[in-house]
């Protein structure tokens, strides 16, 4: 049973790459979804490094006098969220080393009922690449939510940085006619893709990507 399983997996992989001879780095992909700060209470500031992983270090912006980000439990009946407490708030994602690429996959934006005519500009930019993805969230503005019932919708930036590049996710509702602090984010999902060092095995898997170099490097070790 077990052997059939690996065969199916490898079969799927080989089918996916076709008979392509292009070198394909083998990568480990670690996905993280943040859904709140366990054990905190309403209006506790979000710890600056909340959500950091071994691969990616997060830094939540904090500009006094108000915290940019607060914990909020049971947000309008929808559980724990990250309340956006200032006109501009951001999170930076710094890869732990130069072999890691970070991607911002998705998040929910959520307006508390009665939040008013809310529009938020969001963006993901890379420290090297510049702007990677951006958009305006107006799902709960006056036009789209005339009864001002609030609620949440999913945003999927699908922005990936280069290896070692720091990404910044920023929310700006300076131009919004909605009420500050009626906006929150939840289910922040990001991925860290680890590009392995060119170990012997990985170089070998490349097939056309390094058997010659591997033969020489082996002699060195």
């Amino acid at each position, binding site marked *: 049973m077990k*052997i059939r399983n*690996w*065969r199916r*997996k*490898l*079969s*799927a*992989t*080989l*089918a*996916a*790459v*076709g*008979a*392509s*001879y*292009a*070198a*394909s*780095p*083998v*990568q*480990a*992909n670690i996905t993280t979804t943040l859904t709140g700060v366990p054990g905190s209470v309403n209006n506790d500031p979000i710890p600056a490094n909340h959500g950091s992983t071994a691969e990616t270090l997060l830094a939540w912006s904090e500009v006094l006098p108000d915290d940019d980000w607060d914990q909020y439990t049971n947000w309008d009946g929808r559980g724990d969220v990250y309340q956006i407490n200032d006109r501009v708030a951001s999170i930076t994602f710094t890869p732990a080393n130069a072999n890691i*690429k970070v991607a911002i996959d998705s998040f929910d934006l959520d307006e508390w009922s009665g939040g008013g005519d809310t529009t938020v500009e969001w963006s993901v930019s890379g420290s*090297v690449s510049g702007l990677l993805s951006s958009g305006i969230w107006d799902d709960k503005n006056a036009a789209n939510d005339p009864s001002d019932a609030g609620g949440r919708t999913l945003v999927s930036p699908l922005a990936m940085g*280069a*290896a070692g590049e720091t990404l910044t996710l920023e929310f700006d509702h300076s131009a919004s006619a909605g009420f500050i602090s009626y906006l929150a984010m939840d289910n922040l999902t990001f991925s860290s893709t680890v590009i*392995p060092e*060119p*170990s012997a*095995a*990985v*170089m*070998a*898997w*490349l*097939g*056309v*990507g*390094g*058997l*010659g*170099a*591997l*033969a*020489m*490097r*082996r*002699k*060195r070790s």
Partner: protein
Amino acid sequence: MHAFQASSREIPWAAAGPGVEAGDPQAALAKYADAVRQGTADAADLANYGVLLCRFFQFRQADEVFRRAIEVGGLDAASLRRIAHCYFEIGRFSDAARVMRVAVARTADPDTVTVNTLAWTLERDHQVDEARRYAEAACEMDPAYGPAVRLLAHLDRRAGDLERAERRLEDQLRRCPSEFDWGLRYELAAVQDRLGRYDAAWAALEAAKAQLAPQAARHLRDSQFIRRRQWELVQLITFADLRRWHEAGARLHRKRIAFLAGFPRSGTTLLEQMIASRPDAIDTDESGILASQFVEPLVWRADDGLSAIIELRSLNVEQLSAGREAYYQMTESYLDEQIGDRLLIEKNPLFTADLALGVRLFPEAATLIALRDPRDVVLSYLFTMVPLNWSSAPAMSVIEACRFYADAMRHWLWWRRRLEDSACEVRYEDLLADPAGATRCVAEFLGLEWDASMLDERYRSQRKAVRTPTYDDVTKPLYTRSVGRWRNYEHYLEPGLPLLKPFLEAFGYAD
């Protein structure tokens, strides 16, 4: 900074089998081998095992495994297409066609793609009548399927029926616009060029490139990254490096090897075929082994040019010997024959910009550089339809194409002052005007005996298949219509000509 991505797709780690998950693909290979030994491998396992073997350059074993997979039976058309593609990639077109015949024969209701793939493999195997029958069948199955129409037009062009090819393509573009229009337009441009309808040809070419441009952007960034790295590296090479590298070469077991480079569409394939007609020479037909196995990991994927030169400088004789042995093993596997004492022609038109690696690994190598009027080179490059990658993406515009030429050939201007007697330039125009004289010079430079077989196109058409885009041209008698062709498009090429001027002068093509 742009991070270079050589791969067209990424392999999800989790879906790559336990051997790969553990960082050990050799284990995956061993598991397949065990399954084969124990008789538990089914046809799909065998097919996957064969693909994996190909990735490890074990083509002979892969061939045996593929044959067994087909004997066992039960493979679907997609799996058979994958096997055919493996054969196709190493230039074994008759084997590819054999597999695709099985795919068509064994499937109760073969799909259009499968039938047309059979037609393409037959065409590459020069079985043009049968190729036409299957392409027509694919067209009947799905009249909107552009690739089949393109193949029929290509067959018309091969047969010299240019008017028919043009009508066929224009009719298809009018009736069935599709995402493959770019392919039809490339073919149309080639046909109209042959018909002397140069403005129409250029318009077709531009329309094709406009459709491809969004997909090409990523590859163009890769291209620029690679070209910067290549130039960064070469500028770090000192005369002392070259002296040390040659001294190290004296301690290595000497090989008979020559690099044949230049730029795509400079006549490298023709020259290679002429040299390889000698029994004491053998050619690689752009196996890509040096580039993919050595240059990419050691140079393109290095952190920077400095890291690359440090690694190249650090290689000792033992390491160089190991690299050379690996290269010869992979090349013999690819060629499916022993090289022995023959002169190995390592042909890769784009190797000009990676000669640093070549000189480091094989300091005793001779270097042949194919030269041709840069304006004709760029024009031909612009007209050539090849899959999008780092080396074809610059063909999306005249200026980018000229930049690419300049970026590659400035390496030759750098190397020609350093390689001196171990290098030889061969002008394509001389090869056409005086083939006997030009090939005599080449033979003498390479230490080969000249004979008239080097001029015989029948030999070129009978020997092994040619994988590169010029596969049809090189089997024909030499023709001169490709000389000075750029003048038909001078107006369109004008924006890029200043970039070519230094090379026109350096290579003796200035008007």
